[in-house]
């Protein structure tokens, strides 16, 4: 009976493994992420930009969108350039939010908000592959780094969608209340 149960479990695992779709090879070889710039009037700490850069690279690696995520300013072999991406962008708006408004009014009032634009270009000819607009909202009590995490996740999600669809401008909007 025990042997039969063990065999049944092993068979189920084997069937599950066979049914799972195989990992497709990424379409692009490398992606270089640049530090995002901040528009005039955006009051974010310099540490935010560094953290967002790290998070964006982390999310790109997790998404398996490209074979390799390289750092800012790193070189790529000439043969790989047509299959390489460069991601840059700007934080266009940042609102600190208000804890009082958020607690008293609720319904999205007083949330901390961040808007950013990201450009994805092909390295070889600088052709714009997609333009991403992201709007992230979080509870004002949360750290701005949490917002960076959400924004990076949203940028990669939209990028994946846009590259799959084929170079159409997309707009992503994310709200992460407490």
């Amino acid at each position, binding site marked *: 009976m025990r042997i039969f149960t063990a065999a049944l479990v092993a068979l189920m695992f084997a069937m599950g493994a066979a049914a799972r779709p195989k990992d497709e090879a990424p379409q692009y070889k490398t992606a270089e992420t640049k530090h995002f710039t901040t528009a005039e009037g955006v009051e974010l700490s310099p*540490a935010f930009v560094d953290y967002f850069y790290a998070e964006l690279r982390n999310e790109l690696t997790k998404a398996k969108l490209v074979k390799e995520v390289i*750092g800012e300013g790193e070189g790529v072999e000439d043969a790989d350039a047509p299959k390489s991406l460069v991601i840059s962008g700007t934080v266009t708006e940042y609102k600190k939010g208000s804890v009082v408004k958020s607690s008293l009014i609720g319904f999205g009032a007083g949330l901390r908000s961040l808007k950013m634009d990201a450009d994805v270009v092909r390295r070889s000819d600088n052709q714009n592959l997609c333009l991403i607009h992201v709007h992230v909202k979080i509870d004002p009590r949360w*750290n701005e*780094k949490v917002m960076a995490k959400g924004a990076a996740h949203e940028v990669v999600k939209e990028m994946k969608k846009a590259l799959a669809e084929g170079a159409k401008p997309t707009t992503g909007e994310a709200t992460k209340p407490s």
Partner: protein
Amino acid sequence: MPLRGTLRLSNAFLSLVVFSGLTTHPAQADEPKPKPENTITIQPELVPPQKFERPPKFWIADITDRSGNPQPLLVMKERGGVFLDKQPTAIMKDALEQSLKAANLLAADAASADLVLRVYLFHFGLASGSALDFFGKVEFSTMVKSPKTGESLEVQAIGTSIANGAMRKKNMQKNVEENIEAALRDATRNFLRGRQLKEAVATLAKGSDVVPAVAPAPVEPPKLRPR
């Protein structure tokens, strides 16, 4: 009256002792101390450098800590602390030397080197993150100098890594160690495979072919950055 004065003095002395005891003892108790169980060893990984047209021989002259961190060995203060077993400058030097040596780009001594590197380390270890994970960051700037012409150029490099947070101390230490190793590998790679280094090597090689009549003014080394 003299008795009152003595009483006041003794009261003041007593309160001073009590307050000093209250303020200093907990702080001393909270201050983490390096022990074998809370010390991590960072093992640099080999990073293959980029290919140069005419591969130069590098020599690492000096690595200076410009982070302004009073405790460079202390990586994390919370939960009993996490310490490095070596100074960040020594780890950084090991990482660069190992990678250059493996690619046969390291000179035997300063005299035989085509380019001399002076590294200024701005950040090594953990940086403030989202509190949900560990954010490792290694940032440095290098002055690449041609001993023949005296000309120098600056090359900047940054490496980052995000690792998951952990509840157990053992896992936390492991994650911190892996995180710093990843950030160090990333920074070394950013330097050795960066376009800035390629351009600097090409420019300095051109300069050393034609020796200038007047030596160029030395470039000022990078200054301490606010943390």
